[in-house]
């Protein structure tokens, strides 16, 4: 077990190192210059001063070593566009916002998704099934940026209580959470429906029914509990998708989370911020995978022996 743990940990570290290196190489091969500003070129002298300030005048190999060292020290450096906050501070501020949004979306998806799927399966080929199918088709098919804009245009503008965009109060989080939740919700509903249908056809359900257990009890105790297992298995992916999927939603709704920082840093060519956010995301996702993997191994002894890679 501990051997597997160590090997898994080593793999995660190697993966991280690869990502950091790739990001570093990519960012330094971008010919752009974050200090340039349209219609206002800066004189060479000022440019040189800026390069020195951000340590960009050093040879690339040295910059790389410094960067690695800083990451180990959990220091992502200074933002090239903000003189007010460091990248660390931005991440510390943006991540809770993204996480709150992501978790709310996850809750919505986890409550509504299975319910929708289960109901659809129970009323197969009847009205509730069609409704749930339409919702899940929309969820899977409509890109989140279209959904976000439509929610603003048709919901927020007509419901006074729901703000159009911005951040601060809880009601600001409602629409973006829903926009973000829709895709995983739909996926979960679809998965739930099919696994529920499969479970409902099983013998033990029939047995339970024939024993005279009430329909509600059969559904809740036996069918749903078993049908939800495949949904659990995709949670890891869903969580990471939610984190990353918030890029566009945060941008549209003006939510000051990590996703927005990432998109804005791309517009602004704020390289340290791009690198910082990328590496941070990578760390989160990789630790997530690591934890889930280890957790699985702890629970399920079968995995320990056979599991290779993923």
């Amino acid at each position: 077990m501990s051997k597997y743990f160590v090997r898994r940990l080593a793999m995660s570290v190697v993966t991280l190192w690869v990502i950091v290196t790739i990001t570093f190489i990519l960012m330094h091969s971008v010919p752009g210059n974050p200090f340039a500003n349209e219609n206002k070129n800066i004189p060479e002298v000022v440019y040189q001063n800026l390069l020195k300030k951000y340590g960009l005048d050093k040879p690339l190999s040295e910059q790389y070593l410094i960067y690695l060292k800083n990451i180990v020290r959990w220091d992502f450096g200074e933002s090239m566009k903000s003189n007010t906050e460091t990248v660390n501070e931005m991440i510390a501020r943006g991540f809770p916002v993204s996480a709150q949004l992501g978790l709310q979306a996850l809750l919505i998806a986890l409550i509504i998704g299975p319910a929708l799927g289960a109901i659809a399966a129970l009323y197969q080929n009847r009205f509730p099934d069609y409704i749930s199918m339409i919702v899940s088709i929309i969820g899977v098919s409509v890109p989140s940026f279209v959904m976000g804009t439509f929610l603003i245009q048709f919901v927020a503008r007509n419901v006074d209580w729901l703000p159009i965009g911005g951040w601060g109060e809880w009601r600001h989080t409602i629409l973006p959470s829903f926009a973000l939740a829709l895709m995983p919700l739909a996926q979960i509903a679809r998965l739930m429906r099919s696994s529920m249908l499969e479970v409902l056809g099983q013998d033990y359900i029939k047995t339970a029914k024939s024993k005279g257990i009430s329909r509600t009890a059969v559904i809740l105790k036996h069918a749903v509990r078993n049908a939800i297992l495949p949904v659990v298995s995709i949670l890891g992916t869903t969580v990471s998708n939610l984190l990353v999927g918030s890029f566009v939603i945060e941008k549209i709704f003006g939510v000051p989370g990590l996703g927005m920082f990432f998109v804005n840093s791309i517009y602004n060519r704020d390289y340290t911020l791009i690198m910082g956010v990328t590496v941070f995301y990578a760390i989160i996702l990789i630790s997530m995978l690591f934890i889930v993997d280890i957790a699985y191994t702890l629970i399920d002894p079968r995995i320990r022996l056979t599991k290779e890679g993923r």
Partner: protein
Amino acid sequence: MDSNTIYTKEMFQKAPRELRESETIKRPSISYWSDVWRRLKLNKLAMAGLVILIILGIMSIIGPYMSDFSYYEQDYSAINLRPNKSYWFGTDELGRDLFSRVWLGTRYSLFIGIAAALIDFGIGVIYGGIAGMASKRVDAIMMRIAEVIYSIPYMLIVVLISVVFSSTGAGTSMFVLILAMTITGWVPMANLVRGQVLQLKESEYSMASESLGASKSWILKKHIIPNTLGPILVNVTLTIPRAIFSEATLSFMSLGLQAPRPSLGTLVSDGLAVMPIGLFYQILIPAIIISLVMFSFNVLGDGLRDALDPRLRK
């Protein structure tokens, strides 16, 4: 009759026709693929998806030529026109015909999606196939590499690569978009192929064929590839919409195709610009088509998976 009885010709009589026929298999023999097809046909949703895809595919080929206007011609006296008789989908902010733009955009988007899926497929099959057939050691190393690559968050790397290349002056060419999407995308395919190969390698029929002296490549060609094709096909069908989706998201971040070439993504993000003045058709039409494409590939992929699943065989 005693043992000396001699059987003469006369003693035999022709069996009646009815008897002979009872021996033949009445049902036509069904090959694997026609069976899959038969079951797929029963899935109404998947068939709807297939039909929509065929229609969209045809329109993406002939659509741009059906309109009187090319995708780049600008008419400043006809800006932001709602759909009408001469402009079936209306015009955009530069007075260009949206009908030809939308269909051309569909073409480029489908192309990006399909190309990305095919490249994923190509790399995945080769990599996964080699890993599966090779020795344990090589396999372990190759899979570690694949695992590291796959741990790179997909959207992050797509965005990063597009940023790098779109800055260098290559514009965001189709090539760059596809490259960005395939850089990590091939791994699930490779895993899939490797898994299948390993499973089949151990199976009795390939062992049988090996003991009969078949070479490795022959087994690969005759047994393994045909049998892994099913799951691969499902994977390909589900990769295409993901690539199209990513392209649309990139366009939203202004990292889409080089103007004046349209893609569904750039059309949607162009449409966003006129939304505040109530011109919804400009975003609605490409958005509906993206949604249709996504929908069709998804249900078709699901349908294929069900049709290929022997457990669901009836």
